[in-house]
């Protein structure tokens, strides 16, 4: 044994060979190097500034009582309550938006990858579907919100919200906002699922076909389990898009901070009623809004940011767990 080991002390760390010195570089190259370092560090600094400042403000103003008390109409800031209702509103919108977006996005991706590659007609249809999803992804959310308002003020859809005193449909409710929110959540979900499906190797499908399985059985038992983590990533991204959205909330959820159910039935009344979310609460309490209570805005913004950061962390965890279990990583941030 010892005869085989050479009698040389190995260095603790792997040694690197001599590399070219920056001093020999051209000036333009040195400048680019500097710019690259500078850009990276600046971005880090900006992010750190936002996170640290919001964290500082949040810790300064956030009190546990704020999380559990409803907003109150009051002259002084001391009596205006907390943001329990906006928290519930955010959760409610997510709960409405994701169940609409997820099946749509997953079925869309399945159709495009598994069925849309056939003839020429189908392939062109595939392109149309893909580009329309891209357009939805690129549309500003305020435009989506306006469009939603136009739709939900139709008389046919008065059951979504409620009819006002003058006979006009109000068009603003949790259902309306949640439905439009699903459009916001759909593109990242679709892209994550599609990329996951595309990353499943062809021989995996063929293995299922070779066992005498039909295409639909293959999708249900082989492909969907394979892209489970991609779907989870997509859902997480969609949730973070929904809870971060402001425009749709302001246009489609009314301007009340408190949950205002409509009608008798408790569950349905809540869905048809108006309310607020963390984003609209922050907006309302910022110096630009009516409330003008920056302390509360900071506290709510801190909670919101915490949610989004946690969701991003979750996305990364899912992707890493998937990668370590032998799958391919297909993390696509925002479309």
């Amino acid at each position, binding site marked *: 044994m010892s005869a085989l080991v050479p009698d040389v002390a190995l260095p603790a760390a792997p040694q690197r060979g001599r590399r070219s010195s920056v001093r020999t570089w051209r000036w333009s190259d040195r400048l680019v190097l500097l710019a690259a370092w500078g850009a990276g560090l600046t971005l880090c600094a900006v992010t750190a500034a936002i996170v640290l400042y919001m964290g500082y403000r949040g810790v300064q103003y956030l009190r546990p009582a704020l999380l559990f008390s409803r907003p109150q109409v009051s002259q002084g800031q001391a009596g205006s309550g907390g943001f329990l209702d906006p928290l519930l509103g955010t959760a409610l919108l997510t709960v409405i938006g994701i169940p609409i977006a997820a099946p749509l996005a997953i079925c869309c991706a399945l159709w495009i990858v598994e069925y849309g590659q056939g003839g020429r007609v189908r392939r062109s249809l595939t392109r149309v579907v893909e580009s329309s999803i891209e357009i939805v992804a690129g549309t500003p959310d305020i435009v989506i919100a306006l469009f939603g308002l136009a739709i939900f003020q139709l008389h046919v859809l008065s059951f979504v919200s409620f009819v006002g005193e003058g006979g006009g449909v109000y068009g603003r409710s949790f259902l309306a906002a949640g439905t439009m929110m699903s459009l916001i959540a759909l593109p990242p979900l679709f892209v994550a699922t599609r990329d996951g499906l595309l990353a499943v190797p062809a021989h995996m499908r063929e293995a299922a*076909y*070779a*066992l*005498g399985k039909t295409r639909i059985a293959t999708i249900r038992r082989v492909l969907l389990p394979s892209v489970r983590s991609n779907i989870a990533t997509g859902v997480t991204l969609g949730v973070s898009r929904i809870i971060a959205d402001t425009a749709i909330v302001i246009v489609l959820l009314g301007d009340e901070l408190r949950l205002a159910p409509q009608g008798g039935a408790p569950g349905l009344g809540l869905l048809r009623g108006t309310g607020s979310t963390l984003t609209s609460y922050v907006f309302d309490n910022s110096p630009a809004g009516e409330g003008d209570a920056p302390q509360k805005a900071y506290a709510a913004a801190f909670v919101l940011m915490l949610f989004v950061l946690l969701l991003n962390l979750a996305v990364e965890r899912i992707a890493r767990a998937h990668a370590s279990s*032998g799958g391919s990583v297909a993390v696509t941030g925002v479309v």
Partner: protein
Amino acid sequence: MRDVHNRYKLYCVNLYREELTLKTIVRTPQMTVERTPGIAHTPRDWQPTPPVPTVQPAPPAPTVQPAPTVQPAPPVQPAPPVRTIVLDRDPEPVRPPEQREAVRRALEGAGPERLRLRDVAVAYGAKVAVRSVSLSIHQGEVLALIGPSGCGKTTLLRTLNRLTELTPSATRSGRILLDGHDIHELEDTALRARVAMVFQQPNPFPMSIFDNVAFALREQSRRRPRRAELEPLVIDALRRAGLYEEVKDDLHRPALRLSGGQQQRLCIARAIAPRPEVLLMDEPCSALDPISTGIIEELIHELRRELAVVIVTHNLAQAHRVADKVAFMYLGDLVEYGPARQVFEEPRAPRTRDYVRGAFG
């Protein structure tokens, strides 16, 4: 300098000529897909009906459940053959006609014939991948398809369970008979349950070991069989694939946690679980280390008792080790087909000789 240039030009022209010749060789008449109209799809609980009499002179009675072990029938002791001696030709034994059939059977293979290919040709669009291949595949023997890359081995293999149909541009002509029935008349799912396949990459599904095998066993039926019904079948399949001893402690482990060789054996277990008649293997060991390869080759040796095995391999040594019959393909043609010993030791075609000697590949 001028000289060098001229020589290069000549070289290019020669290359071009060679390509032209190749193209003329490759060109074949327009292919058509043979479709048989008016044939109802067979029901799922398909039972073999007596085969078409014109197809085979004397087909062995086909059975859905392959006989557990069909040992090679001991050949009838033939009377000493009469050799007519003709100058300039190899002596050819002439046997009495009643002995010919028995000798042919003994030479051809052990068990009953499972698959028969007659003039099978496959094309992708205008490109012909496989041209006029006729051979038969018997239970109890391993047929190795060898040949350089792109010679159509894998295409031929995938045609046997109609996986080529997944490629929209693929067209097929000729007939493939599974136990005397054209595979085109079977439902694709029914066919693929009888002609199973193992792929180059180990590809277990993202579920537990148990579920991987159980997935293959479950029919597309409304009633899902219960665990207790499936368990003995799953264990039996794992045992036949030589994997059970290694995984018996925890059948509910995710299959992707297994090593590469174990994954491939799981894929084999999955493929043989529904008791298919033919097992197709597309370079099953090319992604594995030598030890796993050895285990799988042993397994192939075992499996051929109850199955007909067709294996595509790039590895001549492997073909040497596992094959009873060898088919050598080149540019879509079946160049040589015969017992492994003959193909490797005294190949008839010069192409085969060059290939098995490693002159090209």
